[in-house]
């Protein structure tokens, strides 16, 4: 059994009068494949944003590899090994695909990586993502699935310990979903913990070792995917919508 990598304790996120996350507690093991599902607006993206640092929780603690993340700026979380993708892909539009992949490496941990190594690792990331033949293209020339792969390539370029994949497969065709899923499996096999937020049930059930369900800002179940999906509360949450 591998060590606990990420600890979320008593997480709460309020926006003025609106509570997006009431309370979430979670332990994630290194190398795990955790799926997160829940109805729209339940707080899944908020959860990811709190771990990534885009949002500052109103209460609770997040500890990553033994170090608390409170007050740690977003870019430093990236340096510590937490990578994320965005729901709507956010490539750097004025740069080529290769340059996009180089960006995380050029600034990693203060930006002292020699350019030769930057290029090599960026190439490797593109290779893993299957984007080598698009290396010189600008993002506006990429298809949707290629843009998602670019998001992932950027995220894995620095060989992160934890990847937060926020609805990477949303809106993709079935075959494309499988392409991205294979990539995520490969990323996990290479040693990266993956937390996957997703709506596409077959992808999530296939991918996850553990499944967490968030409804109305609270965790209502976490464990074996089949068991969790069979819980009456989960059924109610989805069908009762």
């Amino acid at each position, binding site marked *: 059994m591998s060590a606990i990598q990420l600890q979320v304790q008593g997480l709460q996120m309020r926006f003025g009068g609106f509570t997006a996350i009431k309370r979430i507690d979670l332990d994630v093991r290194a190398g795990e494949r955790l799926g997160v599902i829940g109805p729209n607006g339940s707080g899944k993206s908020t959860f990811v944003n709190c771990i*990534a640092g885009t949002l500052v929780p109103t209460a609770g603690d997040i500890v990553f590899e033994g170090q608390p993340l409170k007050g740690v700026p977003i870019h430093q979380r990236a340096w510590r090994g937490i990578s994320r993708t965005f729901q709507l892909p956010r490539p750097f539009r004025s740069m080529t695909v290769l340059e996009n992949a180089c960006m995380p490496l050029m600034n990693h941990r203060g930006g002292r990586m020699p350019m030769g190594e930057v290029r090599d690792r960026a190439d490797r990331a593109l290779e893993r993502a299957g984007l080598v033949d698009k290396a010189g293209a600008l993002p506006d020339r990429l298809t949707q699935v290629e843009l998602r792969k670019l998001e992932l390539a950027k995220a894995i370029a620095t060989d992160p310990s934890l990847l937060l994949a926020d609805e990477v497969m949303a809106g993709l065709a079935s075959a494309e979903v499988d392409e991205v899923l294979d990539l995520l499996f490969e990323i996990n096999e290479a040693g990266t913990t993956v937390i996957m937020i997703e709506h596409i049930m077959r992808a999530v059930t296939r991918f996850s070792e553990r499944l967490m369900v968030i409804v109305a800002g609270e965790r209502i179940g976490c464990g074996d995917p089949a068991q969790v999906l069979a819980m009456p509360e989960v059924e109610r949450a989805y069908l009762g919508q």
Partner: protein
Amino acid sequence: MKQPLSTPRFSLCCLVAALAVAVVFRMAGSEYLWFSAYVVLQYILLATAWNILGGYAGYVNFGTAGFFGVGVYTSVLLSKLGVGSLPAMILGAAAVAGALGLLMGYLTLRLRGAYFSIATLCLAVLLQTLVTNWDYLGGSRGAYMIRPQPPAMLASPVEYLFVAMLAMSALAVCVARGIERSRIGYAFRAIRDDEVAAESSGVPTFRLKLLGTTVSGALMGMAGAPAAYYSTFVEPASAFGLAYAVNTMAMALIGGLGHWLGPVIGAVVLATVQQVAMVTISSDFNLLLVGLLMMAFLIAAPKGILGLIRPENRP
């Protein structure tokens, strides 16, 4: 494919070019030419400095006049304190304006870009008020400056100022190009393209933006340092004049953002046009022309003259 010049080589070329210009102008020996060229060079410096933060990183500084004015008045202050040497004034201006850029950046760069821009304008007005009320520096009555004697090789004070400005603008262009081609330049582009994504990719955006405001501010201050000697009479209304902000921005925009050559082209074109217009038409019309040109380019040619010459997206 042609390999672009490395920064040291480019700097050498710049130096050689600057020397060549200085020699050519010296052979012409015309006070008027030095005097007019000074203005063009000053705007190359200002526009290049503005472009570092505005064109590269996407943060629009409306307060160019503030930094320029601070440079002017640092010179006045040093002069009143008995320091008359131009190099000392330039260094002093760079230090003060750079510190100002750092401070302002620290205060406002955590906010949206639009708030930063508004804050820069407010800062310029604040500084102007401060200086206007500072009697030691002459206040609203103004201050007189006597031009320094030039060092041995140069013919006159005006040539001295011209050469100083030539050197500084060459320096600015080298610095800008150096930044543009470095990791910092790439990081700036990422910030401009999508700051949130940049931060998530590990770009320390705040730190780098601070670098941008500091370097940009320092260069703008340097542009103001010799201005006191150039005009021999300074008063806050003109030192902090809005014309500086508009001209600088217009030149960078018209020339082309995001590339070191853009502000140079924009400054040369626009400043020359203005010098001609000022002689033939009123100075107000001059300003109107700049404003209208800026609007026209923003609407019709947002990538500037450079964008028209090279239609592809990137430098």
